[in-house]
């Protein structure tokens, strides 16, 4: 029997980071299935350790980013997904996946709205790891870089105090080093109370190798020729492997 943990990546119409995200998952050791959402059924989660929502523009994101995808997911596997999390399953949302997660009530309340610049922003950003114990960030250094590419990545909460609370509670696992898009408290990524649900706007799958960095002389991080994004997937893989024992 396959002893590698299984990841299930949901592909909505308009999801477009599925191939490289699957490649990243495979690189750290996951068996990965990319599943078009038309074929999604509750049974598909059986035997799966990790559900991934990758980047893209699900259904075009014309209504509000991630809105329709969250409704489709809710309708197809809503309850199953919550059971999956309660029973030890992991959920990762990257960029559009993070936007979808925020609307599925699986993360602390908050909305990802249009960047303060009013623009799509494709650039590299500095990040601070505020949750070194998170299963998603345990092998990441205190500060690292990743690329972002989004128009709606500004995390807002109803009251500014809520966002400040996320920083105190540790829900704000990842924050930008600079004010990139107007996010409250510079929040770039959120985790839930279990620590097994994590969403972030930056794209770790785009920085798997040192050579992916914009500076050809970037010196690398940790062992091997890996980029910072690799360590997010690797952390997760380790956490799931250890959880299995």
């Amino acid at each position: 029997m396959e002893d590698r943990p299984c990841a299930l990546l949901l592909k909505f119409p308009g999801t477009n980071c599925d191939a490289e995200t699957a490649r990243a998952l495979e690189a750290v050791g996951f068996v990965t299935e990319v599943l078009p959402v038309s074929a999604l059924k509750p049974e598909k989660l059986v035997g799966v350790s990790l559900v991934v929502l990758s980047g893209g523009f699900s259904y075009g994101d014309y209504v509000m980013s991630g809105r329709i995808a969250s409704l489709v997911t809710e309708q197809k596997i809503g309850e199953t997904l919550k059971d999956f999390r309660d029973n030890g399953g992991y959920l990762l949302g990257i960029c559009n996946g993070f936007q979808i997660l925020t609307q599925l009530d699986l993360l602390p309340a908050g909305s990802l709205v249009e960047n303060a610049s009013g623009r799509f922003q494709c650039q590299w950003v500095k990040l601070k790891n505020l949750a070194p114990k998170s299963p998603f960030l345990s092998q990441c250094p205190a500060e690292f870089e990743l690329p972002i590419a989004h128009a709606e990545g500004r995390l807002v909460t109803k009251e500014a105090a809520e966002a400040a609370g996320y920083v105190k509670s540790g829900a704000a696992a990842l924050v930008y080093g600079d004010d990139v898009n107007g996010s409250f408290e510079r929040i770039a990524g959120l985790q839930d109370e279990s620590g097994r649900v994590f969403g972030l706007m930056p794209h770790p799958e785009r920085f798997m190798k040192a050579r992916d960095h914009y500076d050809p002389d970037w010196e690398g991080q940790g062992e091997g020729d890996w980029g910072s994004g690799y360590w997010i997937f690797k952390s997760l893989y380790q956490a799931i492997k250890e959880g299995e024992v």
Partner: protein
Amino acid sequence: MSDPATLNPLERIAEAPADHYRVLKISDLDGERLLELSKFMKLSLSREDMLAIQAIYAEWDREPTDVELEVIAQTWSEHCKHRIFGATIEHEVDGKAETVNSLFKTYIRDVSQRIFDRKPGFVLSAFHDNAGFIQLDDELAVCLKAETHNHPSAIEPYAGANTGLGGVIRDILGAGKGAKPIGSLDVFCFGAPDTTMDHIKADDVIHPLGVMRGVVRGVRDYGNRMGIPTISGAIQFDDSYIYNPLVFCGTAGVIPIKDIEKKIEAGMKVIAVGGRTGRDGLHGATFSSAALDTESHEEDQQAVQIGNPIEEKKAADFVLAARDKGLIEFITDCGAGGFSSAAGEMLEECGGVIDLDQVKLKEPGLVSWEVFISESQERMVLAVKEESLPELRKLADLYETELTELGSADGSGILKVTHHGNTVCELDCTKLHDAPTRHLKGRWTKKTGPVDAPVLTKPGEALRDLFTDFAIVSREPIIREYDHEVQGNTVLKPLAGASGDAPQDASVLRISGSKRLMAMGVSLLPEWGKTDPYAMGAACVDECVRQLVAAGADPGRLAILDNFCMGNPDAEEELGALVETVKGIAAVAEVYGAPFVSGKDSFYNYFETKEGPVSIPVTILISGMGIVEEESHVTGASLRKSDSLLAIIGHTSGDLGGSVFARRHGLENASVPATRAEEAWKCYVQYHEAVKKGYIRSAHDVSEGGLAVTLAEMAFSGKAGLEIDLCSLPMDDDASKAAMLFGESPSRLVIEVAPEDLAKVADLFEGLPFAALGRATTEHANLRVEWGKETLVNEPLADLKGLWKTGLARYY
């Protein structure tokens, strides 16, 4: 009842029974009436074309249907048939007469064929498919295609550019049995962003700023949603583009070599996949083959379609999955001409039947010709084996795209179209592709000569001035709106270097499943072409090739594309400029062994303003792809180490013509530098040897703004200041200081090497123009350029970078 021969076309059409199609009696019309009919139906066919059609029908002893006339108009349109590139041109250069029998055959196809013969197995497909393919490795091939979408973008910038990119992406999906799009390029020509309104001499023309913003957002919203990184591009600003902005969109793809060949056979089913068919985009192909005026802005809104990238994304996911399962026998996109072009291309030899009743419509009530030529977006047409249909239907359901069976191939050689039980079109496909050869006249008279360079009293100020020019300022605000890293393969990004925001020449993509990479580059120099189109053509090929080689591509494995835009081909001087441009690109491409594998042209980019017609200058975009053997060869354009030495490869001419400096300093008709192709080629081969040996830390091409701008741009990585001395610069004896600093002679590269490697690199360039220029330094953060004992430039790099970074940002 009046005499039918005197009826005007409107009456003639009204006379035919009103139904979903009409038979139009044309046999008794004279040339004038035929031309009126063509204009009335917006067929964009000339009197000669209409007479030819009349003759064909006389031979068949029947009258055409409106569907047939529309099909012929689409097929013979300049957009689909490139009739000017196939024309016989009586050309005169400086009083000497010559005859060009087809620019395409003489200067594009034949030149490329000779290169194919020199490099067997490298070019796997050229000219006949949607895009040309070159070999990447034993398993995979890559392709590139670029299209223009000028007229739609002039009228509706957002939608025009949106569908421009959407269309070229479909070209790639329809290349071979379906290539995977992996990267896009976008090149624009606009009026200057600071154009004042009183400078625009026609009504209903969108201000250049509105055009720019709309076009950029159109490209952004299609490319980003499709998940294809936009990695390469260029923008030119010139007054002549106010009325006719140019929008070039290109996409590269990758395909297994075994899936390049496609063939349709009798018995196969023809299916459509993707979006539905509506009244949007009627007459796009014929519309784009005519000039614009204020009226066309009002009338032809329906020729511009609205894009829906998610529809296309679903179709793309379906196509690539179906190809991987071996279910596709033939595929092409629905572009200009809609089903008529797609089915026509597919069935031209085999023949077959298309049933329009099967077509899924956006709205009811479309008549036959509307269904058949509608250019509604996001549709692909495939030929498949009947037994594959059930599995294809399942895949279409899985990816949530609509699949429709349209008809079948039957081996009859006849394209037959039925609708509501009637045969609305029955054409011998071979006749569709026999448009009359056009006869045109061209003339070119030399415009340039030696002009004294101005005496440079303050070269530093001249340099600062250049860094505010729209030709040079950073494209960062636009580049950041494009996702250039989706797919996770963009190794050399459009902005890179230690600071992440310094300009690069070519971009380089990793290719999943291969150790090799692909570089993409673009060049256009319309300013040169205004006075010396031959030099422009030559230099564009040179610059594109140089970018690719600089980034690490193997100079022996490059292929290029030619995309032409011009004003009025019936104006002799304008067509003459085109002929000279074509000669220029052909000459240099042949020396470099860089074959043309695909090309496209756009005519009638002129506008009837209140003060007469304004044409764009003949504009050539050369875009190219190159194979990079391994990742270690990838070379950026930004200074990397503070202990480095800098050197220049290539000869500096004293000619300032075509340069940004010349334009800003009012030098008119100054000689434009020639491309010394033989020498440049040797340099590129040696440069690549240096790359393979690991000697090159970085390399930047010398282009707009000349050497001084190139040096500063390299140092925009923020790693060090530069100490440069021009005393050993390889150059014309009489080159002025202005030419040394700001001249734009082609074929030059500035390279950064480690101190210990300089002698070894110099050895490689024995007998070629090469000189050490200076060094990086941590002693200061300036660009300091000396000439012997004289300090020409000593400017803080931070100041120059500040000017450069904010020049366009203020307007975008």
